[in-house]
């Protein structure tokens, strides 16, 4: 069973090859949703002109940074097991996981706090909600490892 622990300066993610494969497939499935997510690329300004200028200056850098974080996640999951991550890589993972969670949640129509109560226990145990919970668990564990 997957486990995350700290060993000195490194975060160690122990998981089975099958679990690794599941995570990579989840990344593959959700990544195409990022492009249409408002939460993944939110506005900075209410005013259209200022927003256009912000996008012109920062939009490409933000997109590149997102792609780099997703690449860090994929590379980590594709390398030797257990996965060993320095703190910069852990940050790349937690950012990438946040983008994936945002895009998936938006796709599911989650819009307000308390959304969990709108689903049955069975729905929580099955995809796509179980996928969201799995990504949440992984992100939370990685955040704990940073602290």
């Amino acid at each position: 069973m997957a486990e995350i622990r700290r060993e000195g300066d490194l975060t160690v993610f122990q998981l089975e090859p099958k679990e690794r494969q599941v995570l990579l497939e989840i990344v593959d499935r959700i990544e195409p949703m990022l492009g249409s997510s408002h939460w993944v690329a939110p506005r900075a300004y209410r005013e259209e002109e200022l927003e256009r200028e912000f996008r012109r200056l920062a939009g490409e850098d933000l997109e590149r940074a997102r792609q780099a974080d997703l690449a860090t996640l994929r590379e980590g999951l594709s390398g030797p097991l257990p996965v060993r991550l320095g703190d910069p890589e852990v940050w790349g993972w937690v950012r990438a996981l946040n983008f994936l969670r945002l895009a998936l949640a938006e796709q599911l129509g989650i819009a307000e706090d308390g959304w969990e109560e709108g689903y049955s226990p069975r729905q929580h145990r099955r995809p796509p909600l179980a996928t969201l919970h799995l990504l949440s668990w992984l992100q939370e564990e990685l955040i704990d490892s940073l602290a």
Partner: protein
Amino acid sequence: MAAVQPVVTHGTGHSASEERDRPWQVVVWNDPVTLMSYVVVVFRRLFGYDLETATQLMLKVHVEGRAVVATEPRERAEVSVAQLHAHGLQATLARD
């Protein structure tokens, strides 16, 4: 981030330099899925807040729907918002 273009001053009654020096608020908005623990570590990382301050700001976002996490000159505030976006947080700029 690249240099910021001159500020639009139409109707504000301020000169371009006055407008540039006016502080702007960096506002973070609640979303229903981002983990509270994540918001706290991002606030600490980007703004250097101690755990207590970062936690209070996160709770303000969660309970009130938004919180001003910094008040800075516009150029610096844009960088802060871009950094928050790079971490997947919902952040906007508003005139102080």
